[in-house]
């Protein structure tokens, strides 16, 4: 009888100790909450609102700034498309850095959602002979042209098919997004993407506080964590508010065009109608909504 008692009190003590240890470290409860957070797509409107509010408070505590995190859904009747004029692009990489800044990409380790490939004019679009590390005094270089590559926002996205946890999906407006809190970091999507558009946070991402963009979207440019995949979202935080993506705005030669494919009088539809467009790796049947064309 006595033995039984001592065992019971031992169990009681140990559970008390565990609970008090958990209660003492308040941040641990937050970590547990985050650990138990469900897939964004399965949350109700109310749950999403609470999540966003908590996030804003968390970021404020972390960076000491006011943040505006949006969870705005796709606008009905929109399907975003992109067109890039290969004859105008000069390979200046301004788009690369505008994107980094707008979308809070990690500076060190460095992440670039846009890769600009320098190609030889004589070879045409030939990835095997292209160079992403080109670094001359002045661009464009003689005998070369430039092919910027970012997420091609495929209609048939391989990355979404292979994801084992449904952490990435195509939104109704055609943008492929990632739930950074649900991604397990297996990188199967990176193996599946034919365009090298997905990037992994190999280490703790690092964005200088003074440079952080506080206008955010939950599925877009909010700060990422170590061990998750990220990608171009057509600047979902901007385009769902009716603005152009940052790369379109910055381009000094106007090579980048963006618009609603469902709007018959949009610029993007004009290009599809009046220019001849190509898509990259068309043989893979990914059906990109990112087109390349020759404007002049």
């Amino acid at each position: 009888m006595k033995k039984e008692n001592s065992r019971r009190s031992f169990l009681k003590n140990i559970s008390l100790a565990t609970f008090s240890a958990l209660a003492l470290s308040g941040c641990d409860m937050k970590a547990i909450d985050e650990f138990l957070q469900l897939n964004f797509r399965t949350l109700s409107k109310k749950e999403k609102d609470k999540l966003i509010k908590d996030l804003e408070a968390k970021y404020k505590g972390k960076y000491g700034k006011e943040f505006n995190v949006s969870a705005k859904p796709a606008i009905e009747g929109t399907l975003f498309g992109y067109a890039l004029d290969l004859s105008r692009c000069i390979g200046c990489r301004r788009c690369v850095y505008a994107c980094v800044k707008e979308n809070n990409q990690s500076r060190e380790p460095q992440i670039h959602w846009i890769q600009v490939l320098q190609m030889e004019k004589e070879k045409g679009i030939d990835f095997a002979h292209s160079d992403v590390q080109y670094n001359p005094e002045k661009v464009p270089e003689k005998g070369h042209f430039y092919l910027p590559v970012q997420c091609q926002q495929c209609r048939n996205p391989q990355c979404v098919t292979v994801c084992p946890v449904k952490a990435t999906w195509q939104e109704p407006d055609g943008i492929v997004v990632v739930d950074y809190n649900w991604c397990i970091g297996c990188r199967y999507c990176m193996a599946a993407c034919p365009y090298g558009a997905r990037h992994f946070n190999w280490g703790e991402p690092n964005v200088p506080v003074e440079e952080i963009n506080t206008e955010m979207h939950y599925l877009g440019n909010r700060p990422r964590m170590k061990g998750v995949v990220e990608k171009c979202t057509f600047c979902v935080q901007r385009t769902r508010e009716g603005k152009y993506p940052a790369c379109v705005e910055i381009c000094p030669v106007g090579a980048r065009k963006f618009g609603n494919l469902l709007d018959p009088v949009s610029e993007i539809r004009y290009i599809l109608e009046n220019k001849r467009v190509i898509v990259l790796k068309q043989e893979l049947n990914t059906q990109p909504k990112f087109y390349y064309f020759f404007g002049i």
Partner: protein
Amino acid sequence: MNFFRFINGSIKIILRGNKTYYAWLIFLSLLIIWGGFGYLGQLREGLIKSHMRDSVSWAFYIGNFTFLVGVAAAAVMLVIPAYVYNWKPIKEIVIFGELLAVCAVIMCISFIVVDIGNPLRFWHMLPIVGTMNFPSSMLSWDFFVLIAYLFINLFVVTYLLYCIFYKKEYNRKVVLPFVLFSIPMAVAIHTVTAFLYNALPARIFWNSALLAPRFLASAFCSGPAILLILFQILRKTTKFEIKDEAIWRIAELMVYAMFIYLFFTVAELFKEFYSGTEHILYWKYLLFGIGENKEIVVYSWSSIIMGFIAFVLFLIPKTRKNFLTLNIGAVLIYASVYVEKGIALIIPGFTPDVLGQIYVYTPSMTEIRTAAMIFSIGFLLFTFLSKIAIAIVFDDYNIDSLNRDARRERVTNDK
């Protein structure tokens, strides 16, 4: 109550052994500690401690995973010839083959866990509590078949050992369907793992229908190699009886597997090099390097040379039936397939990357240490489980001996 006594007795068994046994345990423990601290660094700082980057986003870990799936599959497939040729100790072959399969699957899952960026979120992959992307994602298929395979083997081996332990006749009607089912499952785990790579049109190097057949053929080389050596050790140290002929027969079957593997590879190489499209780049990188980048060539050729020597040693009857050369061949083919799956299969899939850029990958110290940790844990587990199984199957470790011990203890206590 009996269960606790069984655990107690089993701990006594795994702690008993000669000097070589203890040296082996210490060796594995040191490797686990050394590797564990390496893995700790990765847990703290992230996968940046590996040499993987966006260009080569899967590498050594996933290669090890693939290799071990092969080992797990082949261990059980060995039951087929054991049955067909009516080798005497078929029950023992089933027990040790399935024990090896269980350990190999546990190692496989460990390699997946260390490879993912957020191991704590592993539960997202489970059905019901998580959002498993079934049936779209081949990775969720793979996870599913691996778990199923693990439980089937665990069940069969535990049930058989349980029956022997309690000196009961095992129920064939219970065991046989599971053993028979585990064989196609063995084929399935390796096929699905091949499909994992095979199903990616973006990765031309893997996008060949021959990938799954090549996987199975190579698995049939590496898996039996371990059992070949294990059977010899068991034969020397226990009452386990297996005839020389059976061992030579395993070696003979391995030669067939090697030949099929060689044939498939030659067929693949012919198609690639004769048609000479841009797809040849990946094989070129693997075999000769591209430009200055030749770091991987040493891996591919060492695998080819080791595999070839093993093939010759197993092919010639005289060297096949000589146990020294046979064992050298077994070690060589094991190493050859390990390098092939660990490096030569994965890396050319990513080099050059999808945009034609070359990032030279070789495993980092952290990756090597983490892999050493997982292998050591797996070997340790296999050693312990085999030791207990040996005691149950061959030595007199059973319910009677436990009762005897208990009685003896009581007598000493009363005194």
